[in-house]
């Protein structure tokens, strides 16, 4: 095999053991948070019919990996989880009592230009809440996002919440035609304020409407933001969205996460997909958002089941990157033991190892019959804590005999003294 084929495909990565253990830690931590709020895990196929996946994505159609099966059907690798879960809800889970609380941890695939923090295969952990259209539902989902990030050990993070209907209401009131609405929405999503101003100047929106949209870009903070915004708009739809935001914020306060929450009306994410509250989480230590979500009441209806829905996804790789940027000490215990034994001591060695493993220790056998010096070098590189010797091994006389689990062994501790040599 030539060297080129030994490379990974562009945009993929290997999680080597020292990183994989951190990823596992994060996923376990998220899983525990989700479970604590009553969200049960769902696992869906890695690939599905393209039609299903393309129905549910926020502008990801061009980034989906597609292929044919042998019957000529178009299949695709999932670019995110929501569409697949919505499909399962609209079919298999249709008769389940509502609300439905589902969580997931999975890898997803997008054909993107690979950059730091952006891969073609990456991992997401998230939840979806089906059948609840009230502000309390939004608040529950946002609170879980905050608790999940907090629980993973992340510091200095915020979640910004906005509501797409604030802008939709202003544009509808101004009776803007579809095409220009689309362009304004795109400029809002892309945060292109230069284009936004140019577009607004082309419309007959009155100066109050223009101000409400432009000022919406700068309204950030707590409940006072909503009071200010209420002064800016006169239409029912925008006002209702603000009242909705206010309610959500009040619940978030009661749920004890408001220190992480910032109201930011400029958060819109994608207009085609979201239908109400939208939010995104980020930390000062990373130039990309770490999680995102919102209310998407129209999606499940596309699969023939009309229920409201809200949810979010956390980018596990980005969360990992942020934690590393923050020098987070992952609470991963190191308690590795290596056991040396000679042929006469097989039975004792195996029963000792069994007992240690039952007590939760990580134990490996020495299978090479190396000298004690060589084994110590190996163990230090591997980060093991100690070596236990049964029977006769060269060099063992320098160490203390001890009784462990009723077994007389020689123990070589690798912490402290030896590690520094």
């Amino acid at each position, binding site marked *: 095999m030539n060297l080129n084929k030994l490379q990974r495909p562009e945009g993929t990565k290997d999680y080597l053991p020292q990183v994989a253990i951190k990823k596992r830690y994060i996923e376990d931590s998220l899983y525990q948070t989700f479970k604590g709020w009553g969200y049960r895990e769902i696992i869906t196929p890695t690939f599905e019919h393209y039609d299903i996946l393309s129905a549910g994505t926020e502008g990801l159609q061009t980034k989906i990996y597609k292929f044919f099966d042998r019957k000529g059907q178009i299949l695709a690798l999932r670019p995110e989880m929501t569409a697949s879960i919505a499909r399962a809800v609209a079919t298999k889970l249709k008769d389940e009592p509502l609300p439905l609380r589902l969580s997931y941890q999975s890898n997803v695939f997008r054909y993107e230009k690979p*950059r*730091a*923090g952006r891969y073609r295969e990456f991992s997401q952990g998230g939840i979806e809440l089906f059948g609840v259209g009230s502000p309390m539902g939004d608040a529950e989902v946002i609170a879980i996002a905050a608790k999940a990030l907090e629980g993973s050990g992340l510091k200095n993070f*915020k979640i*910004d919440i906005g509501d797409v209907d604030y802008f939709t209401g202003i544009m509808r009131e101004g009776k803007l035609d579809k095409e220009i609405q689309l362009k304004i929405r795109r400029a809002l999503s*892309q*945060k*292109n*304020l*230069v*284009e936004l101003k140019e577009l607004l100047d082309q419309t007959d929106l009155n100066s109050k409407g223009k101000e409400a949209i432009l000022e919406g870009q*700068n309204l*950030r903070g707590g409940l006072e933001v909503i009071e200010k915004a209420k002064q800016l708009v006169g239409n029912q739809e925008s006002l209702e969205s603000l009242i909705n935001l206010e309610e959500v914020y009040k619940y978030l306060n009661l749920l004890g996460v408001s220190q992480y929450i*910032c109201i*930011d009306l400029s958060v819109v994410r994608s207009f085609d997909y979201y239908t109400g509250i939208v939010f995104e989480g*980020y930390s*000062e230590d*990373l*130039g*990309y*958002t770490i999680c995102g979500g919102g209310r998407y009441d129209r999606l499940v209806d596309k699969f023939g089941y009309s229920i409201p829905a809200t949810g979010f996804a956390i980018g596990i790789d980005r969360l990992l990157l942020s934690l590393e940027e923050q020098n987070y000490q992952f609470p991963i215990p190191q308690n590795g033991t290596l056991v040396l034994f000679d042929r006469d001591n097989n039975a004792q060695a195996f029963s000792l190892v069994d007992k240690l493993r039952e007590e939760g220790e990580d134990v490996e056998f020495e299978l090479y019959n190396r000298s004690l010096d060589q084994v110590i070098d190996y163990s230090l590189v591997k980060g093991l804590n100690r070596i236990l010797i049964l029977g006769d091994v060269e060099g063992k006389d320098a160490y203390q005999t001890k009784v462990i689990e009723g077994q007389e062994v020689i123990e070589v501790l690798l912490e402290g003294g030896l590690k520094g040599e």
Partner: protein
Amino acid sequence: MSRLTIALPKGRMFDPVVQILQKAGIVGRDLDDSSRKLVLKDEKKDIDIILSKPADVHTYVEHGVADLGVGGKDVLLEARANVAEILDLGLGACRLVVALPKDKGITSLDQLPPTGIVATKYINVAQSFFDKQGIQVETVKLNGSIELAPIIDLSDMIVDITSTGTTLRENNLIEIAEIAKSTARLIVNRVSYKTHHNRIKYIADKVDEVIKNNS
């Protein structure tokens, strides 16, 4: 208040941009893009300045290694950079145009043959423009002297920037369509725009004031 990092484009745009930032009181010290140093510090104003190639500014900003930057709209369009674009600085005005040799006798898009080859530095911009026009083209990526391509029959036409049109004229090329207008933009990392919102908003307002007084 924590420190901000600004990425500035070396070369043509550098001096006018620095002048604006100094007038706006954002940068206090003198800056020189010919120095070998790539990061300049302004302790008084609590700002670091990264000197970068114009085509790289948006990359620094998108990743968040720079919080703000100044980039040409032409480059931003081509890169489809995921950054917030918050202010038009009005500098470095130019236009992205389609041009071809005069002697072909073509003066508008609808006279173009159904297929063609376009030489350009801006392959994404060119491709999506022609796609929207329903004209099928193939692009040839060049990094400079784009005007040469149709003269030596490497391509049928070019997509390039022009400010006065002199280079096009000198090479016997005529413009048949404008794709976009370009000026320098103040761009901001999308997370920095949240985490440093007040300070960045302040900078944008100050810079805007200077630009309005200049014009």
